């Protein structure tokens, strides 16, 4: 492929970049993807399940600051109670996610209309529905249709992951309370579990052939259709020839700066990486960052604030058997009820006991440690509470020139404060979750009111909208200020909902790709 033949230069090969590249290349477009990381060998995931717990804190840590990996960029987390998590490799954070794949609700796109908060999206659920379906098929979804909390959806590719005795115990507790629950959708082949039911840990680090990531689903197909991917290639700057048009990018590979000319640039680097690159691409014509006349690039950063509540049960329960998470979910309190004193709501996601080291880390150190451990290990079940985070301009990503990546490019600062609304959601949710755990038989419960290492979901830093003064892109991801620069990742989110965002990110990428195929802009 010669440089001048590139229709779309995609930056980032994760959830969105892969889906987009597949769709465009399948339909004849010339796609080149630059990825700062490398392909990950599926055999490199920890096989020894004891070592898994060391690996989860070191080379497979979700927090890039802990990995000492030259493909990551440094992040200053001093001004945030929630630390962002990500992975930089072919497949992006799908290399390392739990593959929990619920969808947004129709109401999530209309929060201003419904609740008078934040803004409505310029698109609705039904604009995305067929792309959700398409993505579910490509990624391979286990689960079961019929959830009363959501619009109906197509038959899942695989049956649900078995609930296990503990999952059934929790499900029955929900039933007795007359609260909603439903088996989780996962991008995991549930057939894997038929003859394997023991300590598995998180899907993020389990044997990978059963877990879908974009390196093993979208990329092989995209490459078959002619898409190219260059690894170890870190984009330094998007270059423009005038105010409106990108002409190419500078990227660094093996320490050498290269220039590549392109027709269209597509950013798929997640809500921190995309904002970082646009801010690094400032120039005389774009002094606040590329395409930043709205001055919103980097702002409105949303995480999903998580709390964790655990119940301790009597007996020898072995609650560590089965996958740690993605078992079942309750959306009983998903929508706004003004009588609760906050806007929007939350989902509850059942989680099992960790292995020994990660269990121990939740307990006291010192003289009580061994007693606590013997009572707790294998006997703890709980929920992660995922709250909807509303966008606020005071939560933002900015460049930090005092910390540099391995190519000398600036790191980022995360400036984030937990809102009063989010705190109220989590407090209410902890109280409600305590009730379901006690109903299931827990002797007592304990909780982490806000999980620090839980910034799995990065959203909102270049939001889409119809008004160029109040948004960075249009509803098809095209930057308002630019003729040929598109954004396709979670940066586009106007609001966050209270579910894991990957299917929505991928559906957006597929929708944007489809629009480009149909309309060429």
């Amino acid at each position, binding site marked *: 492929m010669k440089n001048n033949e590139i229709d779309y230069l995609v930056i980032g090969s994760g959830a969105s970049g892969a889906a987009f590249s597949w769709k465009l290349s399948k339909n004849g477009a010339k796609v080149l993807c630059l990825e700062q990381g490398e392909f990950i060998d599926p055999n490199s995931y920890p096989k*020894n*399940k*004891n070592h898994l*717990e*060391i690996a989860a*804190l*070191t080379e497979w840590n979700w927090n890039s600051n*802990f*990995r*000492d990996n030259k493909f990551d960029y440094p992040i200053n*987390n001093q001004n945030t109670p929630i630390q962002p998590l990500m992975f930089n490799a072919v497949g992006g954070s799908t290399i390392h996610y739990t593959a929990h794949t619920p969808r947004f*609700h*129709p*109401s999530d796109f*209309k929060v201003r*209309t*419904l609740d008078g908060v934040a803004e409505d999206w310029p698109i*609705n659920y039904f604009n995305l529905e067929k792309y959700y379906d398409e993505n579910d098929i490509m990624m391979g979804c286990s689960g*079961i249709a*019929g959830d*009363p*909390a*959501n*619009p*109906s959806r197509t038959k899942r590719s695989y*049956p649900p992951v*078995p*609930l*296990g005795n503990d999952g*059934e115990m929790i*499900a029955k507790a*929900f*039933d007795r309370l007359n609260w*909603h*629950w*439903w088996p989780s959708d996962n991008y995991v082949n549930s057939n894997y*579990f*038929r*003859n*394997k*039911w*023991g*300590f*598995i840990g998180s899907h993020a680090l389990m044997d990978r052939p059963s877990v879908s990531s974009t390196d093993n689903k979208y990329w092989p197909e995209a490459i078959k259709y002619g898409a190219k991917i260059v690894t170890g290639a870190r984009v330094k700057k998007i270059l423009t020839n005038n105010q409106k048009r990108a002409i190419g990018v500078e990227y660094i590979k093996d320490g050498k700066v290269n220039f590549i000319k392109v027709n269209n640039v597509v950013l798929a680097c997640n809500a921190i990486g995309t904002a970082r690159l646009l801010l690094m691409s400032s120039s005389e014509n774009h002094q606040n960052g590329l395409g930043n006349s709205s001055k919103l690039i980097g702002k409105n950063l949303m995480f999903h604030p998580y709390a964790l509540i655990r119940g301790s049960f009597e007996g020898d329960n*072995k609650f560590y*058997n089965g996958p740690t998470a993605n078992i079942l979910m309750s959306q009983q309190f998903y*929508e706004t009820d003004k009588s609760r004193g906050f806007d929007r709501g939350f989902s509850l996601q059942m989680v099992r006991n960790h292995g*020994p*080291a990660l269990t*121990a*880390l939740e307990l006291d*150190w*010192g*003289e009580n*440690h*061994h007693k606590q*451990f*013997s009572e707790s*290990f294998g006997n703890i079940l709980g929920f992660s509470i995922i709250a909807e985070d509303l966008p606020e301009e005071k939560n933002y990503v900015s460049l930090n020139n005092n910390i540099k990546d391995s190519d000398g490019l600036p790191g980022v600062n995360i400036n984030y404060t937990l809102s009063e609304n989010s705190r109220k959601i989590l407090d209410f949710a902890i109280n409600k979750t305590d009730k379901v755990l006690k109903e299931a038989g827990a002797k007592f419960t304990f909780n982490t009111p806000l999980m*620090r290492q839980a910034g799995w979901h990065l959203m909102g830093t270049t939001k889409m909208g119809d008004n160029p003064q109040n948004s960075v892109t249009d509803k098809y991801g095209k930057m308002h200020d630019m003729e040929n620069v598109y954004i396709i990742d979670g940066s586009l989110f106007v609001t966050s909902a209270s579910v894991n965002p990957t299917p929505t990110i991928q559906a957006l990428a597929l929708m944007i790709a489809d629009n480009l195929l149909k309309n060429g802009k």
Partner: protein
Amino acid sequence: MENKITELNKKLLIEIMNIMIPTNDEIPSAGNMGIYKQLEKYFIKLNSYNKSIITILKSINLHPYVRISGSFFSIDFEKKIEILKWHEENMIDDFNNLKGSIFAIYYNDQRVIKKIDWDQKKNNYKKVKIPNWDQSILEKVNKIEPFWKKI
């Protein structure tokens, strides 16, 4: 910052390990188990953990109790606990890294694995036939009318 742990600070780290994870019947306390090399192998070699561990050790050495008595080793046990608790509350990330590295190595040790009956051959991918998905568990929740908000 100097990234090597001095011999003196190594002794301090071992003492902290002993306090955080004391003796458990026949299993010695963490610092006396001879697992420091594992700590070095997996954690101290990483910049992030190295920095956190050295930061905590340095800060402990500067604590008023330590400066008055001349050494962490010569102060009362209660004061040692107080110093560690102060660091846990005030230097959260660095302390969590220190704690995480110690616990991960300790619970990866074969003596501990045996003690807590965490037999991987028994627990890991045990050949247990899991029954096929049984729809009957959904009987009650299926009676809930769809309640997603239509807009």
